[in-house]
């Protein structure tokens, strides 16, 4: 189902799925209001000042006037004083409004909190859902599911360099800084798929470090969580069994984890439920069999500099591996 949705999301336009101007959370909404207010004031100020300038240009003075007449100087002085006397209170109103919005943005949205750990890597997002019961903690990557209407605390950390977590429809940015733990509060008030992207320059593939935030109904979210907590499906089909062997005995297992298999490395994204994700390579490719094959064989053409090496698999091995990965719903 999700793959279909992703196709829809990616195929049409993502124009308003990663946009400051289409907020779906309380922080982004109040920030947009502030932006509209500032825009309105700025346009008025601009029109007045540039208008005055252009009027003066149009009515350029003729040589009859004394350019230093005291009466006109006094009137210029008066006008400037009035202009400054208007500008300063306007700036104060702006400051007060801004501080009020900053309070809204900084405050936690009401309700019981869901906590998710997001760790930045060059160039993907590691996502861990916290739970008081250790058995219920699970890991995923590049795709964050949240229930609509429920506040979410996202704890931010970085594995390597500075990254920045930004899903503009929900909230402003927060940097992931090595040595500085921080968090950000979000809440999505409408179901939908919102795209986010690393906003702090983080090296070669900074451009291809995106993620999706999927806001869904509480029921759908609970079902998704239950699915994610399961270990990987055990393949029954003989081709898929062979694919699992390729994964475990080849280079895949040196970086990736698939829960309940021998692959338990944490260098790359956790692949336990990779087939359920909408995208590959941190939002770079739509998750399809063809794209997956291309990514496994030659990631350096798709995302030059990515940490994943090329894998020279025989056609049979590749087909088996793909068949296995496709079972990991």
């Amino acid at each position, binding site marked *: 189902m999700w793959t279909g949705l992703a196709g829809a999301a990616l195929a049409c336009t*993502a*124009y308003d799925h*990663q*946009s*400051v*101007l289409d907020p779906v959370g309380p922080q*982004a909404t*109040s*920030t947009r209001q*502030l*932006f509209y207010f500032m*825009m309105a004031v700025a346009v008025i*100020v601009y029109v007045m*000042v*540039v208008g*005055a300038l252009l009027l003066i240009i149009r009515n*350029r*003075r003729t040589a009859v*006037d004394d*350019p*230093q*007449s005291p009466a*006109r*100087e006094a009137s*210029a002085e008066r*006008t*400037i004083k009035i202009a*400054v006397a208007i*500008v300063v209170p306007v700036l104060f109103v702006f*400051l007060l409004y*801004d*501080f009020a*919005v*900053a309070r*809204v943005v900084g405050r936690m949205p009401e309700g019981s909190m869901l906590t998710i750990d997001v760790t930045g890597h060059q160039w993907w997002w590691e996502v861990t859902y916290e739970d008081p019961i250790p058995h219920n903690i699970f890991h995923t990557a590049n795709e964050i599911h949240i229930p609509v209407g429920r506040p979410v605390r996202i704890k931010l950390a970085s594995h*390597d*360099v*500075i990254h*920045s977590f*930004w899903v*503009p429809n929900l*909230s*402003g*940015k*927060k*940097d992931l800084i*090595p*040595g*500085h733990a921080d968090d950000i509060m979000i809440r999505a008030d409408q179901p939908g798929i919102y795209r986010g*992207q*690393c*906003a*702090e*320059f983080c*090296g070669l593939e*900074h*451009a*291809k470090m995106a993620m999706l935030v999927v806001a869904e109904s509480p029921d759908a979210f609970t079902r998704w969580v239950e699915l994610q907590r399961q270990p990987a499906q055990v393949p029954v089909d003989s081709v898929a069994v062979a694919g699992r062997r390729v994964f475990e005995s080849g280079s895949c297992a040196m970086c990736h984890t698939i829960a309940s298999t021998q692959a338990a490395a944490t260098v790359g994204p956790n692949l336990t439920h990779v087939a359920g994700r909408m995208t590959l390579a941190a939002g770079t490719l739509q998750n399809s069999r063809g794209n997956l094959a291309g990514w496994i064989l030659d990631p350096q053409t798709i995302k*030059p*500099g990515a940490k994943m090496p090329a894998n020279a698999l025989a056609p049979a091995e590749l087909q088996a591996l793909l068949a296995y990965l496709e079972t990991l719903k």
Partner: protein
Amino acid sequence: MTARPLGEEITLPPAIDEADRARLHATWEPVTGFMGWLKSVNHKSVGKRYICTALVFFLLGGLEAAAMRAQLARPDNTLIGPDLYNQIFTMHGSTMMFLFAVPIMTAIGIYLVPLMIGTRNVAFPRLNALGFWMYLFGGIFLYTFFFMNTGPDAGWFNYVPLSGPQYGMGKRVDVWAQMVTFTEISALVAALEMVVTIFKMRAPGMTWGRLPLLVWAQLVTAVMVMFAMSSVATASIMLGADRLIATQFFNPAEGGDVLLWQHLFWFFGHPEVYIIFIPALGMVSQIVTTFSRRPVFGYPAMVAALVATGTVGFGLWVHHMFSTSVHQLGQSYFTAASTMISIPTGVQIFCWIATLWLGRPVWRTPLLFVVGFLVVFMIGGLSGVMLASVPFDVQATDTYFVVAHLHYVLLGGAILPLIGAFYYWYPKVTGRMMSERLGLWNFWLLFVGVNVTFFPMHILGLRGMTRRIYTYPQFMGWGTLNLISTIGAVIIVAGMAVFAVNLFVSLKRGALAGANPWGADTLEWATSSPPPPYNFVNIPVITSREGIWAYGEEIPVMTGLKTDRPETLITTTMTTQPLYKHELPAPTLAPLGMAIVIGGLLTAGIFTPWGLPLGSLVVIIPFYFWGWPDKKEHERNLREERERRGEAAAA
């Protein structure tokens, strides 16, 4: 007082005979030809080569921008890969900030300030020459490595740990850090000599209340450079040390802090914007005065605004860090400061408009660029006030909204006045006028190009396009606006090409200018165009803020400076009473030698920790030549001393 009509000739300060003039010439330019060029310590020669070098780097930085626009014109473009793109945008930012904008503003100060305050050279001519050579070598150093595919690639801001030893590969970031060392040496010596020149060498009568606003702007900038450059010097040395000798200033695993870099960098990086912008404000004030045919309105307010901008400019740096974990109360302070800085700039804009309203504006190309500056810069200024807001900033920062904002501020606030200044002072420097017709083309192409290129970027930023990305997928829907932006860049290139053509063609074909083609009020127009090596035959005297507009046919001067040695007048700081005659140094190769040695040691310094200690020993050699007294001068002094003693004995 009356503003002088355009094109009216003034009588140059009083006639001395041709023999004296020739002697002055020989005294101030004793060596000619290629050696004379290498040895020159004259502020006008140094200033001119500074300006030309900066224009070359402007061209290179512009080509890098064009390459980026070509890559971003279409989605999923593969013209430039990520590795090269990251180098290009780092080079573009570093070139424009360190090798073009700051140096050219400094260079114009070096050329104009001594002329505008009525003296014959800067206070430390050899240091001035050293500053130029360091700047030139720093630029060559950076581009040599870039052409060897070792250009810095971590952004002009070089955030650690991406630029640190663990993630910054090869020598790329070291090259950047050392280029900063080159340019900060040159910026610091220029700032130092600018402050001393303005404090001690103003013409008699040019008290603080009569100082032209461009000189005020240069003074404020020079003081800012001293504080700001110290901060980035500290930061870049710490970064180099982390990379070369394994110090751990920025390594959180060893108790270092990555945010320390950001604080040190932006404590320089934000004032840097004002270091570029304030001299441009000074140029605007001079142009508005001249072409309104009256003194600028609200002079005390203008001076106060420049000083306030320079001061408050140091209290804003955290607004570049709102998306880091800065405490909310601290953020509020920086929001308030960032809002406040719009007031002095607003006051200046009001005063210029008032001056135009009161005066009788004469529409020539320089004034056209000033109007363009107001129209374009105001957009950048207003979006800057928006970015002072923390909630809005964390949405807009690191997106194309900020790219739009900063280019509106820098192109609108610095480049348009700068090009206006070229049209304005070109006749003084070359003796010929630039073409007004090409000037009109130049202005309109640039004005349209800037808006077409950068306005769509506001929308792109709000629509989620982040900065420093080498490509973007088609489904994001950013393609059309990016294409428009690239078309705008083509128009900018056309505008700049017209400018370049005008610069070259006018050199030979421009109308002869005369001393004061614009009928302006400041002292640089009281000498011939181009000015002689000694600037003024006699040091002029100032009696009012209106400069030479206060005088009729003749300008009062001070006499008594010797013609057989390069003497100039030192005056008191507050009241500009003549203090003593000061002999300036003769042309010498010492600054060039010194720059070669320092350049060598800095280059070695990125490869081995021994570069600095051993190089420091070698620097003693050019120091030795630098300090060695001139033989002829020494003998002359001995002879004069003997004569004085003889006279005393006879008496």
